[in-house]
């Protein structure tokens, strides 16, 4: 147990909510792979040849399997695994009035998504992530993160045919997501993660990110994580320190820890979740590799601020690969904890 005087601001917030985490908490970024049966069922429902109720039942079953698996592996902060989502843009667009699901575009390699189109003013239609988060949280005593795509990324990764400015589009999305966040907090969500992979795409627009995060978190007592991956944070890192979140989840394994020297030179007072598992590689990291990496990370981030995770969601891995990767993550972290206590 870390001495009270060495608690980070983030840790203090968690303790005030009655959440006690060990040193070096381990978590997952968000998505987890779906069982083949579930993938086939989703396809059949999308083609209209299967009852959606059966899909809902299977999604919940898969969620339960993953919650138990995460507990078994020893993760400290769990995720619901996003069994009811295809990707993290389209699934939100479908639940917000004003969006239309668009045509297919390529995002990298052989991965595509149906890029939504904003056709009219965006308005709240139905809960976005609450149902599945709540279902997962009811199954476990460990905290389950609620994971949402942030308004800036939703805006940047959609086509806009209605709004005259990106600012007003982002503002309307922020209002919708805030409604979701307030509801999550009301239901007891202690940890809420906002995924903003686009946040550094246009540094000139950083004020949109800052304003939206401020509004999303205003008056909400939860612990907020802001996740970013696969972009260059150097131009915006200094400004990011103003963001009203408690934790930055940063992908690093994929980019060979190229941001680490900058983090060491310009440390943060916030907690930092570092992705040390490459979610886009089939290669399973070894405990030895991860131990070496964690030691290096501790030179840039004090242990009481450091969390460990995968870079980004694991949905593109097989189930076996995802389990092996998370297993080695928890093993290495457990060993490293022994050196700290």
């Amino acid at each position: 147990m870390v001495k009270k005087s060495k608690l980070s601001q983030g840790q203090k917030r968690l303790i005030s909510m009655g959440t006690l985490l060990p040193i070096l908490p381990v978590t997952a970024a968000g998505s987890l792979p779906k069982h083949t049966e579930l993938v086939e069922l989703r396809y059949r429902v999308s083609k209209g040849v299967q009852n959606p109720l059966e899909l809902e039942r299977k999604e919940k079953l898969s969620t339960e399997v993953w919650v138990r698996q995460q507990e078994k592996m020893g993760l400290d902060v769990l995720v619901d695994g996003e069994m009811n989502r295809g990707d993290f843009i389209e699934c939100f667009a479908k639940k917000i009035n004003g969006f239309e699901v668009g045509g297919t575009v390529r995002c990298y390699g052989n991965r595509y998504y149906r890029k939504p189109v904003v056709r009219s003013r965006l308005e709240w239609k139905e809960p976005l992530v609450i149902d599945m988060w709540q279902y997962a949280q009811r199954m476990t005593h460990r905290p389950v993160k609620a994971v949402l795509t942030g308004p800036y990324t939703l805006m940047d990764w959609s086509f806009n045919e209605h709004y005259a400015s990106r600012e007003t589009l982002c503002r309307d999305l922020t209002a919708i997501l805030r409604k979701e966040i307030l509801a999550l907090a009301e239901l007891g969500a202690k940890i809420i993660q906002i995924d903003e992979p686009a946040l550094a795409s246009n540094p000139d627009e950083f004020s949109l990110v800052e304003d939206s995060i401020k509004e999303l978190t205003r008056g909400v007592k939860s612990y907020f994580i802001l996740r970013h991956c696969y972009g260059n944070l150097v131009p915006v890192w200094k400004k990011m320190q103003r963001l009203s979140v408690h934790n930055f989840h940063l992908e690093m394994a994929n980019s060979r820890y190229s941001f680490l020297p900058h983090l060491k030179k310009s440390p943060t007072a916030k907690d930092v979740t570092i992705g040390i598992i490459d979610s886009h590689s089939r290669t399973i990291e070894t405990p030895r590799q991860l131990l070496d990496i964690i030691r290096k990370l501790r030179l840039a981030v004090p242990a009481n601020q450091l969390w460990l995770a995968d870079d980004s969601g694991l949905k593109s891995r097989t189930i076996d690969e995802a389990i092996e990767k998370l297993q080695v993550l928890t093993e290495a972290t457990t060993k490293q904890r022994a050196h700290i206590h």
Partner: protein
Amino acid sequence: MTQISIANIGNYPRIGEDKDQQRYRRGFGHFERKDISAHAFRDVEQSVAQEIIREQLLCNLDEVTDGLIGWQDPISHFCKNVVGIETAGLARYLNTNFYYRVPVIVSKPRMKEPILAKEFQFAQSVSNKPIRAVITGPLTLAAHVASDIKSFEKISDRIKFFTALVKKEIKSLLGAGARTIQIDEPFLPLLPTALPWVRKSLEEIIPEETSAKFILALYFSPLANLWDALQTLPVQGFNLDFTSDGAKLYRAVLEKPGTKEIGFGLIDARSTKMETVEAVAQMLRRWMERNPNRDCTLTPSAGLELLPRNTAFEKLSLLLKVRNILMPSARPETVHG
């Protein structure tokens, strides 16, 4: 009288919504799982390239591309042919939401044989209009490649290497009969101080005596502040993206038209919103009034692969509709299909 050419200037969506238009995706999946050979996957790529060329020809374009179907992205396509470069993790490409795998120089790089000439030859063999050959420029390549070895840590060192690579590719393209070669440098507006390097590269790359036309394509960033300096570059023309700082760039081009050919990228390649034919025509009309008898090209602002397939086709169709208004002829052309 001013001639307006219409052209596609880059990539094109490789899949569409119907089952047959998804064959590239299926083929790639099979290839990744090693269910089919590289040769068999190449057949799939070529059939898709042929289909894409056909779609462009339906729009009566004067110049088409092969959709850059063989390119996974504008960077790795050229690095996969280099000994000493390995592939690392994902990174965002410029300010798009398209990602590429970062090539890393791990030992002194050595280029193998050029790759574009064969792609060009195939494309030209299935097109009755000229193929515009496209290549990523040395600065943009250098800016998107990392290095583990000290001698290539500086971007200027990487630019030197990629200048030699691009030169070799261009030589082979010229040998294969390419008449228009477009060099894409979308990174230049992000690093305007690199202009002297780009100039030096182009002086090395472009042969002194050639009848081929060299176009420099710039997109995804504001260009107005760069317009004056671009006139010093040894290319025959530019393709300009008017969707970032459109009004400012347009004013700059009208005030100082220069002497080089201009490709007007007036059709937004990143938005599904359809431009109106009259609005686009009006912009070109003003240019034509001020620059009578000066030919130009009307194009999308960049490659079209960031759009869904149907939208990309509609955008190309707009090019012909605009030209029909500005250059009415006794037998106006229409979009086929």
